[in-house]
């Protein structure tokens, strides 16, 4: 029954929340080795991942999308509509990307709740395999539903893709195109291709230096975690003019905050990425020779903050590199996002944005609006990529009244 499955999943995640849990310790070491992230970064990622997968969050998501938990177990009545059964699809394939930590786990959890047979393509750190093993310890029935593999054989990949009713894939856009061509004609394809995120700092947040620093610090955490990898990492911060603190001062404050965050969550590598060094030199030239913008290199880590980068270009989509753009209005931010055709995953901002501001955010195409400092901590019950969480793993059978 669905409730028992959810309970088993939640119990397993609770075990993984303990830093000393041996499978987690082993996986954390392997992840650090694979991605070269430092131990604090990996630990935070695992805390956030497993902290988000709770019984309440899973149940709330299912109830919201399907009407009730019971809808997964049999026909249930629906107000004004025929009764329906959200039957899980037969086969789900989840293809992890080379990056990210445990990105395959949330879709896997929901596919299992839907009673689908799930095959996950794991990475070399075998986090998913380790999680699956502990999940089966909690509920042996998952052994018949869940398989985790690592494979490099393209033929095997193509066969698995062709067999799947639903394919969830993470990675580069070219990879998404390639996978899509191998999907069955009636399969559902849920691609998590390339996207990025931005932050918006309204002038109200720049009224006092101390509050502005709080915003800067929260934004720095979002920007520097995972070295700026992933679709939830902001590479552009839009700071509104007209506050007591200018956007330029905010940029300097943000650079100090980056230094502070770097001490807590050090970069994977101490050396500045070659392309970041090139970008830094060019921005220094702009600042020194043309008097445009400012450059704030990290004092205790390889990060780079550039105030007022060129608007004719996309933001600096480079490791631990963030541009701070001074703007007069949120519409100016929107115009830039549209002009540069930035595919957005999320926008980080201060709490309680106005209705007008929300409209601008929606117009940007972002699927998530988050509090500063929480961009890298998406709720399980949210909709990564704008997709529903469990509905895609089900088909609705209905019985006429």
């Amino acid at each position, binding site marked *: 029954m669905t409730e028992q499955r959810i309970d088993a999943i939640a119990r397993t995640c609770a075990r993984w929340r303990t830093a000393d849990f041996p499978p987690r310790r082993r996986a954390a070491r392997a992840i650090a080795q694979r*991605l070269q992230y430092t131990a604090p970064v990996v630990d935070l990622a695992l805390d956030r991942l497993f902290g988000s997968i709770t019984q309440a969050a899973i149940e709330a998501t299912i109830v919201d999308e399907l009407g009730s938990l019971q809808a997964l177990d049999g026909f249930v009545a629906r107000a004004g509509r025929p009764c329906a059964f959200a039957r899980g699809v037969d086969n789900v394939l989840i293809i992890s*990307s*080379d*990056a*990210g930590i445990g*990105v395959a786990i949330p879709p896997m959890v929901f596919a299992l709740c839907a009673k689908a047979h799930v095959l996950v393509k794991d990475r070399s750190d075998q986090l998913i395999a380790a999680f699956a093993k502990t999940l089966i310890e909690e509920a042996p029935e998952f052994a018949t539903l869940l398989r985790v593999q690592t494979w490099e054989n393209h033929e095997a990949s193509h066969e698995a893709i062709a067999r799947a009713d639903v394919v969830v894939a*993470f*990675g580069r*856009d070219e990879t998404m195109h390639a996978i899509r061509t191998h999907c069955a004609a009636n399969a559902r394809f849920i691609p*998590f*291709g*390339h*996207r*990025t995120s931005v932050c918006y700092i309204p002038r109200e947040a720049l009224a006092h230096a101390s509050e502005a620093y709080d915003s800067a610090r929260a934004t720095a955490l979002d920007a520097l975690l*995972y070295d*700026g*990898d*992933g*679709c939830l*990492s902001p590479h552009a911060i839009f700071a509104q003019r007209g506050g007591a603190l200018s956007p330029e001062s905010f940029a300097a404050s943000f650079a100090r905050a980056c230094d502070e965050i770097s001490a807590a969550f050090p970069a994977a590598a101490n*050396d*500045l*990425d*070659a*392309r970041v*060094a*090139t*970008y830094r*030199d*060019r921005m220094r*030239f*702009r600042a*020194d*020779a*043309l*008097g*445009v913008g400012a450059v704030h290199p990290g004092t205790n880590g390889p990060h780079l903050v550039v105030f007022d980068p*060129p608007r*004719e*270009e*996309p933001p*600096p*989509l*480079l*490791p631990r590199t963030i541009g701070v753009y001074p703007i007069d209005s949120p519409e100016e931010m929107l115009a830039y996002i549209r002009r*540069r*055709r*930035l*595919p957005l*995953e999320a926008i980080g901002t201060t709490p309680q944005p106005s209705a007008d501001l929300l409209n601008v955010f929606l117009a940007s195409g972002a699927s998530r609006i988050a509090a500063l400092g929480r961009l890298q901590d998406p709720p399980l019950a949210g909709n990564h990529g704008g997709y529903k969480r469990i509905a895609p793993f089900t088909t609705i059978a209905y019985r006429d009244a």
Partner: protein
Amino acid sequence: MTQARELDAAFLAGVRAWAHGSALGFADEAIFDRHARALFAYQIDHNEPYAKFAAARGFNRARLPASWTEIPAVPAAAFKDATLATFDVREAELEFHTSGTTAAQSGKHYIERAALYDAALLAALDRFMLADRMNLRFLNLVPNPRLKTHSSLGYMMGHASVLRGDGKAAWFLDDERLDVDGFARALRAAIADAQPVFIAGTAFAFVALLDALDERRAALPAPAGSRIMETGGFKGRSRATSRDELYARLETRLGIPENAIVAEYGMTELTSQYYDAPTSREHLHRVKSAPPWLRTLVVAGDGRQMRDGETGFLRHFDLGNRSSILAIDTEDRGYAVAGGIVLLGREADAYPRGCSLTAEDLSA
């Protein structure tokens, strides 16, 4: 005589001296140093952005660099952000544009006097590519300068074709489309005439050519004495191949031995070019040599000069860049050896990971 004319005259004399085999000229450290520092002084007098850039690094008219190695280098990408010229660019005799693979705008290199570019080009081409014979037939797989008026590569080969060719030069690249049939016809005609050819092209164009010839199962053995100048250019392309593989395929299909296939290395932002040193063309790691008015330091990301053999970024000092910027930092990596540099190319694109985005994605 104006200062610009004096500098140009000195440069052209240095080029002529080298072309005629004189040991004097810019190969002499003191002569290169004196000319470079005079050029720097001239450039900060006539190029405001560069003067400000240099001032931020502690150099001005009152405090000039003690040595050419101290001259502040501008990142090549700065040509996208500023007009880096010592003259009114409306008077430019040459204007070259960078391809601009990642930025919306391309960089522009304005050259006041074409004579400097032409002299530097021909002297080096004669030394590194045409030392044994002239009057080759130029078959160009690079942009036609009549169609791509701002392509430095097109200009370069156009000029060389006219002044060093047999009068029957032809062009086979039009807006990225390669005229394989036209090339094959031209090469067959050269074979029939027993006329050696000089084939110039980007690595990508050669790959496309070879793929097409493979499909046709066509082997076109070029007449003895033929040669190839490969100008790099894989960046941003969908298919890459190793240099060794490319050269082996060229030898097989076109009958031009690998030691007659020479890699040229240049940049839109430079006046002068590097070529594979003749003595290294049989070796696995080819050494790139330049005429003595183009010198290169290998530097770390923080600008610190590396020792010979240590890998770093290439910082070029080109005395031919009188009317723009003498010292230019690049993203190209390599290391210094006796007689030149070994070019390693650009750092592999390892970023981004996950579902994040690169500028290349947006500009594709």
